[in-house]
């Protein structure tokens, strides 16, 4: 810091002057994404579907041809296996898999080409879709980056104290911040923070309504659960591929990868939390003539809140875990640093940024755990 000169004070004033602008950009970017981009993109998707539907017979024909060919390949293969087999044990070493020419056909014609077609003809809408997100993300990053570090430290520590109400966790947070600062990772961390904050906002904004929807209908519950399972069990590298094709290598692609990976817990636990609200209490709200909306906001959500918070907590943890993997598709920050350290076999740099990620995770986890614990106080039912 050195001796403070007058114009350094001036810098602080300039920073303070930019605060409203940054906040406006963040809210505006997110808002525009939700209110304008998302609906427009969905609308364009519907139109695209409609246009594609006109070509549907041709597409179906192509698809059927591929499937038939693949089926034919299997039969032919089986036939070859049965006829040309020398019937020794050796023949049982390898499963008679689809001949490679058929496999190429199936992969290319059945999956890759259709998706490329989708990306190619629908991509224009996707570009629109991500612009406001990129704006929000960049602005949040600039905002954190531009903030004088004492203010940033104070804000983080105050937030941690407000959430956890434990000095121990605040000290841990201070240690994490010092670690990040000392090893010169502040700029990278601010990118990670902006990625985390935005992805969590998006997870909550989409996850909680989806969870509520699932809790209200058993059919939706049955339909969505397998998708959530898939989202969590499918190796994340697999869905990085379509994300990559659609969004290119970019911070927003990273953001979307994180959102897909981290959303399931908050959806699941919102659904579960609402379903676990004691039956008598729900019945009482029926008996006094509550509408669904009154029941939802007056009874179900307040009583599900501890579970919803547990879900948000898990979502945050998963988002952090995904930060490194998402760097593969362009997510900036500490994750990207870990990745490049791995690429250059630089153990020291890898350890430093990896430890920074771990410290952030521990602080968030402890804080939210304590917050959830405090919330439980009056929420016990019965006697």
């Amino acid at each position, binding site marked *: 810091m050195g001796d403070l000169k007058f114009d350094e004070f001036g810098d602080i004033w300039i920073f303070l002057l930019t605060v409203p602008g940054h906040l406006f950009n963040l809210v505006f970017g997110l808002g525009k994404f939700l209110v304008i981009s998302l609906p427009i993109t969905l609308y364009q998707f519907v139109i695209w579907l409609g246009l594609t539907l006109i070509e549907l017979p041709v597409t179906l024909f192509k698809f059927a041809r591929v499937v038939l060919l693949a089926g034919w390949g299997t039969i032919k293969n089986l036939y070859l296996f049965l006829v040309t087999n020398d019937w020794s044990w050796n023949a049982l070493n390898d499963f008679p898999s689809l001949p490679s020419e058929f496999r190429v056909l199936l992969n290319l014609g059945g999956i890759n080409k259709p998706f490329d077609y989708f990306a190619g003809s629908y991509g224009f809408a996707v570009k629109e879709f991500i612009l406001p997100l990129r704006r929000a993300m960049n602005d949040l990053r600039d905002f954190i980056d531009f903030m004088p570090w004492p203010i940033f430290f104070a804000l983080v520590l105050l937030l941690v104290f407000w959430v956890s109400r434990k000095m121990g966790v605040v000290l841990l947070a201070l240690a994490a911040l010092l670690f990040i600062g000392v090893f010169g990772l502040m700029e990278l961390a601010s990118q990670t923070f902006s990625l985390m904050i935005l992805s969590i906002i998006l997870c909550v904004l989409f996850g909680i309504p989806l969870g509520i929807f699932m809790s209200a209908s058993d059919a939706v519950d049955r339909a969505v659960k397998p998708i959530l399972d898939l989202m969590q069990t499918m190796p994340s590298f697999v869905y990085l591929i379509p994300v990559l094709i659609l969004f290119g290598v970019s911070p927003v692609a990273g953001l979307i990868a994180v959102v897909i990976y981290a959303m399931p817990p908050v959806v699941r636990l919102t659904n579960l939390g609402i379903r676990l609200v*004691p039956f*008598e*209490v729900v*019945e*009482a*709200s*029926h*008996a*006094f*003539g*509550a*509408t669904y909306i*009154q029941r939802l906001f*007056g*009874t179900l959500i*307040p*009583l599900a809140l501890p579970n919803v918070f547990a879900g948000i907590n898990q979502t945050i943890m998963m988002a952090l875990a995904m930060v490194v993997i998402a760097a593969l598709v362009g997510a900036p920050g500490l994750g990207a640093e870990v990745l490049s350290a791995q690429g250059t076999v630089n153990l020291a740099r890898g350890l430093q940024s990896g430890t920074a990620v771990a410290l952030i995770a521990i602080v968030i986890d402890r804080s939210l755990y304590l917050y959830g614990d405090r919330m439980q106080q*009056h*929420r*016990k*039912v*019965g*006697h």
Partner: protein
Amino acid sequence: MSQNIKVSIKNLYKVFGSNPTEALQHVYDGLGKVELLAQHDHVLGLNNINIDIPEKRVQVIMGLSGSGKSTLIRHLNRLIDPTAGEVEVDGVDVLKMNPSALRDLRQKKMSMVFQKFALMPHRTVSDNVAYGLMLQGIRRGEAKERSQKWIDRVGLTGFEKSYPSQLSGGMQQRVGLARALATDADILLMDEAFSALDPLIRTDMQDVLLELQAELNKTIIFITHDLDEALRIGDDIAILRDGGLVQQGDPQEIVLRPIDEYVSDFIMDINRGRVLKVRSLMNAGEKGGKVEVDQDMALEDAMQKMKDTPNEPATVLKDGKAVGALDMRVLIDAIERPAPETASGNVYR
């Protein structure tokens, strides 16, 4: 005493299971609860219930656990839909109500007190009591103001800001009662409202209810499995068994003339001398001797008065005028427990 009918239940059936309508046919064909469960894997919840409940009185519904009491009371505000039958409230068929009319009924005409209290654990006492009013769209301030009266009335003044988990069971049920009263509904549904409370607290709550009822004159449908409670509170008692109505009538009538073993098992342990009244046993119109007893006097009190002249019937008074005579032998017969042969079966316990 001719009274307006407030709630009328007609030919009400409820079958639980995957295909209730089909299973109901078997009930029409004469299958009972046990057979229906064994042969068709459906539970017969209610079997042809007919009850007319007059306004401003306390109708008690009794029966052992699983006899269908909760199922029946939940048909009145349609927390459960019947398989067949009708439920009329003030002459309007509840089953034909659309969702908004039904909400209106639940918000303004009928309120409910639950066995497990069913309070909102995240709301304070005063917010719980104001709950029904706030559902009606009344501003929070006004709702709280109006509910304060009921908080005071049930004796919870000073606990407005407590949470239910900080209160004892008896106090929690006072909150439940205040919540039900706060909407000014004229029908009160009480499903074993006091069963979860300790005996002393239960008696307290019965007193609170009787006091309130003397002043408010609501139509109360009160469910219990405790006959002492039924006799204390009820103007009329209906007894359910396996979903069917076994006997209904004046409490005195049920104690004096139980229709079957199930009912006599119920009344076996009560203090008959305290429950039965002179009017139920007198010979109306006959002339008695010097000793005078009021017609609403309990038998044990009458016996006290008559014990010096056991051979002379006492004169029964109503509002100070002689209306009949009471014989000591009749009195002793009535106080005596029913003979063991009739009450020993115990098959239902």
